[in-house]
């Protein structure tokens, strides 16, 4: 193949490795993991607020790791990676979100209330 004659190390996907960015993503990820953990352990806020913090941290880490580690940008080499990744986000959200919604209504409608709030099966 024609590419085999060239030096594979000159390929843009090899050349885009960047130590500084990798380390930056690493540090940010650790901070974003530790911060919500700290908040959760403290229990200073309501659980719903904390849930939002956790979701926000996960989203932020997705963006940081996606950009600095996987280099999901719109450059010519990476455009298809980014496009397919973005295509899959709604699919994942639909799978999890619609399932959760469906079962939330199903649980409220098909579980017998007295059994649902009992403190477990004691007998």
């Amino acid at each position: 193949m024609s590419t085999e004659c060239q030096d594979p190390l000159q390929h843009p996907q090899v050349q885009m490795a960047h130590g500084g960015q990798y380390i930056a993503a690493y540090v940010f990820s650790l901070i974003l993991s530790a911060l919500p953990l700290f908040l959760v352990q403290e229990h200073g806020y309501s659980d719903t607020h904390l849930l939002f913090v956790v979701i926000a941290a996960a989203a932020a880490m997705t963006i940081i790791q996606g950009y600095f580690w996987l280099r999901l940008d719109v450059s010519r080499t990476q455009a298809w990676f980014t496009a397919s990744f973005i295509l899959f986000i709604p699919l994942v959200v639909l799978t999890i979100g619609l399932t959760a919604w469906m079962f939330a209504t199903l649980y409220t409608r098909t579980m017998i209330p007295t059994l649902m709030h009992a403190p477990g099966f004691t007998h």
Partner: protein
Amino acid sequence: MSDCDPYNNDGTLAGGYMAERRWERARGLVPVLAAMLSGCAQKGFWLFHPKGAVARTEWHTTILDVAVMGGVILVAGGLVVAFLWRYRAGNRARTYDPHFTSSLVIEVLVWGIPLVVVGYLSYFSVKSVFATNPYNPLAVRQAVDRAGGGLREAYGERADPTVVDAMGAPPPATRPLQVEVVTTDWQWVFIYPHQRVATVNELVMPVHTPVEFDLTSATVVNDFFIPELVGEIDIMPGMRTKQALIASRTGTYHGYSDDYSGGGFSWMGFRARVESPQRFRSWIKKMQAQPVHLSYSRFRQLARPTINLSERISRFSQVQAGLFDHVVERVMEGRVYPTPLAMTENMTKPMKVRLIK
């Protein structure tokens, strides 16, 4: 029916006679076919002849949907057939224009028409979902309000199901009858909790009275269905679903499971009898005098895998209080009624199961 008299055969085998005979034979088939079709239309098409208010709403929705979609299908199919005829290669009179490959007007129309139709149908779909929602205590009453009316009334202002206040309790004309349904492998247990009686494979209901069902399964998933009275609802082990119906005419209807549940599934039918209130009351009295009582341990015997080949009905009185909840609870704790290997998919040792003949 002299033209298809089988004795009218003189033994000649001339060609012309043969052709005639073939036609006669075919003509003989016509009344048979007609009888087949009309006979079915009279009796068999249960969905065409709903006998309950909820089923009637569902049937009206069907008619509406078929009418609207049928119109679209006729237009589209008509276009295809007309174009095929007009632009067939043999037709010299037609114009041939290979450059006609896009047109903004047509594009807008072909996206617009389906959009409008789907929008229109979606609107009715949402309405009918709420109108037939088995959990809505008002659904039955509203269906009764609409009963007897045609399409216009079914979807009139008065009965707009989207504005139903599901929380507010309706003032019931008649007190609804509560029935708890437990399916086993492969029988139906109908418990009347307030009357404390139970039947197996027979459901008796008073006419013109709302009947509210709680349903669960002791084993696998089934589907509660009485085509002439009410649509389907899943019956799931460890969960409790609800259904409600009201019957507008006395009679005996067929009910069965509509979701495959194993080897005895085909025999898993029950009789749904709709009686006048007086007869229903006397039936309850008779039931309450039954000698056999239904406790949980008795239920466990009942729930062993059984095929009811002869549609035999059993009757119980003195049903243990809270039996339904107890069955659900036990299933949630992990109770199963395993099917023996010989009654599932085993090809070598078939049919080792309790048969009621």
